[in-house]
């Protein structure tokens, strides 16, 4: 069965898009889109960048580190924004978390 429904995004989360939410560049309209059941979302540029980094292995903290370095911006503010964006996506049902690895 699928994982737990209510995902609470934190700095330690390692989120990834589930199979039913697909990030894709729409060549016709020249925009990035997230394809989801009966919906097409238009993520802004930064949301796209965050989602491209979310591969189920990087933590939200790692993602924020990378963006803070790239844009020379305060990490705390970025972390807050990244969590808010991902939580919004999770609340819409379009985010999942990588399961803990049991080696």
């Amino acid at each position: 069965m699928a994982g737990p429904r209510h995902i609470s995004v934190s700095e330690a989360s390692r989120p990834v898009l589930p199979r039913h939410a697909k990030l894709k560049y729409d060549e016709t309209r020249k925009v990035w889109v997230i394809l989801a059941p009966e919906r097409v979302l238009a993520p802004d540029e930064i949301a796209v960048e965050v989602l491209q980094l979310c591969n189920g292995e990087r933590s939200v903290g790692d993602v924020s580190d990378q963006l803070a370095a790239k844009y020379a911006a305060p990490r705390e503010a970025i972390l807050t924004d990244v969590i808010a964006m991902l939580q919004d996506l999770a609340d819409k049902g379009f985010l999942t978390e990588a399961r803990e690895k049991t080696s």
Partner: protein
Amino acid sequence: MSDVLGSPTVPPDASDSLAVLEKQRSTAETFGIPLAVLLEITHRCPLQCPYCSNPVELDRSGKELTTEEWKKVLSELAEIGVLQVHFSGGEPTARKDLVELVKHASDVGLYTNLITSAVLLTRERLSELADAGLCHVQISFQGVEEAPADRVAGYRGGHRKKLEVAKWTRELDLPLTVNAVMHRQNLHQLPDIIQMSIDLDADRLEVANVQYYGWALKNRAALMPTVAQLDECTRIVEEARERLKGRLSIDYVVPDYYALRPKKCMGGWGRQFFNISPAGKVLPCHAAESITGLDFESVRSNHSIAWIWQNSDAFNRYRGTGWMKEPCKSCEFREIDFGGCRCQAFALTGDAANTDPACALSPLHETIFKQAEREAEGETNRFLYRNFAGGTLESENGA
């Protein structure tokens, strides 16, 4: 997010980093290619629901597009900018090549949704569909109790099978939408349908009140809810939406007979939607063939799908506002609802260019509303079942 990171371009709606694309594009004047297209790949269906949205004149299997023709259509749709396709019918799983079509759609980059009655599926076939790249499954339900649900569908054992397929869907980690078609004879089950959706681990529920065209119009007296029933239905949906936020999202469609303003049918004729019929006709709405006197182009013609969308007479006939007569023509809402539904205007007034009688400004609104109200209070509960023979009346003892 753009405030912190100084994003060079402002997103379409700066307040929402995940805006819904359709909402922003819905006001576009360009009639750009729709984001999603409905593919009715067959009219064959083992169920006989009396409110079926297919036309009364069904396409027989001999007229259906071949596998190669559908694959060509899918490639063309992806090429012109369609992002999602809904495989529907009839019953899409009645086509033996469905897995192949889903695979092809995935290969050309389309997001695929299956709209199914589920009764023909095996676990193995569903698993093959998932492997072929299917993204989402939508299963129709006729109710929550076996006997009455099977009676509506005219198919014994259907309800039990649907529950089983819904369970397999989630086991295969496919997202599930429960599609509940509501009418006078099952509206009292709504709270249980909401609970059933939760129990089946669905993420979405469509509470779709019957829309009265085609088969449903023939069955209106047996299906039309009362105003009181509908008010109760709305109250239940609103309460459930609040209670289940983040767990189950509920889409809600009311029958427009009891509204004062007509619905913006299809988002306006030829503005954001088209579907393709089993025989390959490109249609502005799945009921459009009920309007006589319109000639619909086929994917089998020499024209491209994009050309048909932009230039064909049928799409341009009721596009925008230029075709309107009074009271639509000078109405302040003409760009908001585009005069309602053309198919309903045709079915109830004989002229698709008339104002949809669902609108309070239509001279026929009062008459039709009163008639519907009488029917809703009436005793007619027998169905005319949908089939290729033009319909079969339910027997007196309900079988």
